[in-house]
């Protein structure tokens, strides 16, 4: 039972004789419902569950008679107690959902779409949320109840109470994730919070904790069994200051401690390839140098900045060390509540219960972003999304997008879209309009976006689900990398139902709230940024022109010849490691083994040239530079070599780049004296297109089945594949 459902005790009067019974109180309230509603009095502490449906109906009848809308609190209280209310009285999403459940009007599965919206909803009221979870449970929809409870848990832990009993079996049904947890302070409370946090991200966390204060030793001796390491950092345990020391000694000690941390992190990066999540230290609320706290060396903020700067630098240097920004994680909790002194002095617990939950959620969220990767495409509606008004009806001069409200809000939103484009997103126009609507971006003076900012457009009267599928195949991107942004709830609903892979974001109705809203949209957050991200739209634009040429060229051969493609093959240099690792994470379709090597994995090839090599290929053609588009890693074993990963960005697909690259790779291996090369194909849901890649390029089949097959190439007898359409330049 949710805490909030228990009625608060009614204060006992001194003399029991004059104390009205619960029933009498309730009777008074019900018979005066209209007056109470009028005066905005809602007796929340009343236990409405025992009231008969007829009495509840009479409340609404009394209100209707006086043309009074029932107050939200009253409707909440009745719904939470399990009553059904007239449908027009349930006014927001959460009331409607709970009302439907109370009426038994829907099977829980039917409201799956609503559940995901509830889970994302910012203004869930804890009592209502708890009741929805509770009702789902009693309808037997355990998994839905658990998922919703877990999704709501970061902001309202009580939503998980109704499902406590079933949670363990729900979590057990998720795929396990081995977490090694270490800290400088006590980690038990965080360990308890990581379960629900990772459960919300769809994984069953198996947590092994290092001994108390074992953070540094864990960093130096990574756990090979762990999928992910988590380190809880706090200031006092790492670098509590001893004021008996001379100020200079104090400062050098702080620097020394920051160095210890930073070198332990580098050691970890050199010894483990699994990701390490470590939180930064939140800005402290209690200063040690008053108003000078940020700038004087005795200031606590000053010291915290110093350690955080080291931490962020270490994270910048090593791809598998992810610094989780604690100030970001704790943004909704007042800074004075980040730390709970009694927990600190009771058990060396560095963060308050609320902060611990928020940090656990941030770890899980970061991990989810890291493994799933951020979305890649923003599919944007035009009317009332990118500008105010309807182009077809209002005409261009009446569209709101400019210096004054509400145009300035739309302008600010366009700025955010452009910002995301600079961070590597592709913008796609998805608008029900005549095709000339795209010209608004040139003709209207207030527009921030230009037509060329869109990597693809579908401006027509076809359905948006149909359009988005078409664009996904045009751009060679999975639908799960799209975020759909549209002001129309109907379009969003249609997208949710017809193309469930697409992430449908609940755009706020108030345009003023949208710029900040999109900044907070987690799926748009980058994990790290490279130059390639900034140029992605241009690369895709070149790809579109290519398509145009392809359509006009009489034959594919003619087209390919006309492209004048150049492939430059070289060893992965240190500065390209991040980009190559990013490709390893993002590439799903043209990926032979989908092994997802990390930065550290790639860097290992650079450090140990005797063990193997990592190659990359840059592609350019007459339309532009496509950047690094293909990569492979190979390991050596005597005179044999095995291709461990081989993957290519789909923006250069169908042009024999892969053939030319494979040829260059084999040449490099031949030059090193390799006689025989083996390779593998490992089947996934998405890589069907490369099933026959090795066969088509002269490899012979040596074993395996549909799910995984092995191939071999004999360099001493076979000649390497080459493409007549790609000029390969070997810099390796």
């Amino acid at each position: 039972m949710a805490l909030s459902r228990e009625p608060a005790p009614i204060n006992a009067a001194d003399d029991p004789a004059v104390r009205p019974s619960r029933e009498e109180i309730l009777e008074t309230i019900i018979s005066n419902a209209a007056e109470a509603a009028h005066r905005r009095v809602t007796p929340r502490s009343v236990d409405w569950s025992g009231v008969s449906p007829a009495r509840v109906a009479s409340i609404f009848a009394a209100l209707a008679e006086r043309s009074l809308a029932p107050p939200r609190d009253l409707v909440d209280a009745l719904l939470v107690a399990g009553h059904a209310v007239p449908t027009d009285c349930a006014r927001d999403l959460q009331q409607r959902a709970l009302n439907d459940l109370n009426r038994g009007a829907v099977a829980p599965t039917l409201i799956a779409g609503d559940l995901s919206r509830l889970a994302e909803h910012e203004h869930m009221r804890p009592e209502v949320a708890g009741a929805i979870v509770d009702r789902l449970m009693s309808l037997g929809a355990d998994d839905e109840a658990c998922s919703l409870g877990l999704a709501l848990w970061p902001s309202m832990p009580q939503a998980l109470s109704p499902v406590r009993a079933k949670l363990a079996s729900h979590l057990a049904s998720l795929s396990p994730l081995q977490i090694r947890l270490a800290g400088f302070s006590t980690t038990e409370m965080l360990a308890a919070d990581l379960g629900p946090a990772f459960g919300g991200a769809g994984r069953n966390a198996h947590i092994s904790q290092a001994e108390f204060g074992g953070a540094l030793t864990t960093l130096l001796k990574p756990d090979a069994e762990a999928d992910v390491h988590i380190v809880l950092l706090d200031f006092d345990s790492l670098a509590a200051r001893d004021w008996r020391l001379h100020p200079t000694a104090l400062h050098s000690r702080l620097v020394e401690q920051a160095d210890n941390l930073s070198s332990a992190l580098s050691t970890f990066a050199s010894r483990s390839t699994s990701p390490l999540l470590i939180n930064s230290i939140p800005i402290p609320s209690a200063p040690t140098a008053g108003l000078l706290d940020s700038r004087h060396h005795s200031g606590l903020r000053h010291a915290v900045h110093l350690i955080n700067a080291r931490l962020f630098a270490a994270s910048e240097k090593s791809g598998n060390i992810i610094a989780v920004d604690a100030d970001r994680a704790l943004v909704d909790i007042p800074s004075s509540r980040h730390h709970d002194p009694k927990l600190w002095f009771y058990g060396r617990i560095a963060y308050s219960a609320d902060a611990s939950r928020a940090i656990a959620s941030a770890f899980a969220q970061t991990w989810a972003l890291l493994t799933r990767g951020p979305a890649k495409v923003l599919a944007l509606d035009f009317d009332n999304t990118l500008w105010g008004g309807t182009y077809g009806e209002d005409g261009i001069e009446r569209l709101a997008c400019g210096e004054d409200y509400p145009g300035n809000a739309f302008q600010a939103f366009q700025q955010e879209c452009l910002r995301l484009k600079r961070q590597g997103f592709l913008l796609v126009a998805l608008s029900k309009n005549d095709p000339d609507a795209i010209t608004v971006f040139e003709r209207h003076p207030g527009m921030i976006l230009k037509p060329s900012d869109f990597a693809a457009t579908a401006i027509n009267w076809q359905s948006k689900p149909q359009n988005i599928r078409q664009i996904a195949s045009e751009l060679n991107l999975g639908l799960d990398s799209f975020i759909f942004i549209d002001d129309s709830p109907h379009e969003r609903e249609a997208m949710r139902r017809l193309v469930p892979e697409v992430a449908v974001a609940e755009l706020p109705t108030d345009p003023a709230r949208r710029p900040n809203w999109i900044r907070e949209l987690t799926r748009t957050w980058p994990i790290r940024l490279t130059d390639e991200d900034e140029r992605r739209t241009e690369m895709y634009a070149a790809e579109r022109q290519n398509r145009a040429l392809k359509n006009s060229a009489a034959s594919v051969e003619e087209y390919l010849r006309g492209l004048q493609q150049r492939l430059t093959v070289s060893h992965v240099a240190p500065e390209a490691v991040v980009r190559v690792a990013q490709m390893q994470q993002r590439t799903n379709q043209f990926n032979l083994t989908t092994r997802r090597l990390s930065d550290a994995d790639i860097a290992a090839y650079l450090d140990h040239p005797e063990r193997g090599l990592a190659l990359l290929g840059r592609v350019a053609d007459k339309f532009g530079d496509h950047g690094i588009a293909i990569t492979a890693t190979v390991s050596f074993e005597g005179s044999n070599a095995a291709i461990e990963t081989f993957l290519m960005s789909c923006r250069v697909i169908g042009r024999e780049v892969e053939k030319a690259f494979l040829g260059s790779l084999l040449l490099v291996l031949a030059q090193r004296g390799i006689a025989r090369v083996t390779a593998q194909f490992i089947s996934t849901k998405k890589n069907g297109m490369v099933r026959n890649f090795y066969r088509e390029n002269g490899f012979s089949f040596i074993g395996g089945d549909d799910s995984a097959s092995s191939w071999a190439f004999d360099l001493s007898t076979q000649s390497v594949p080459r493409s007549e359409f790609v000029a390969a330049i070997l810099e390796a």
Partner: protein
Amino acid sequence: MIAQQSDLSYPLLATIFEDVFQHTDLLTTATSKDDVSRWDSLQHIALVRAIETTFDIDLSLDEMMEMRTVGDIEAVLQRHGI
């Protein structure tokens, strides 16, 4: 209901104990750490947190250490004017 058989002045505590310790047995003011299997020092923190949020109060370290039985908790709540 539990409240009918027990001597609790704060029936909400029964819900809290169910939530924090999965303790469904009868809760009385005499119920102590020894009677509740999961009431260890770590779960004690969860208990303190549940009490703090439910009754909207801040407890001190002394109060936290003082709460060894349900009766102790009730005494603390009373002192906070709950």
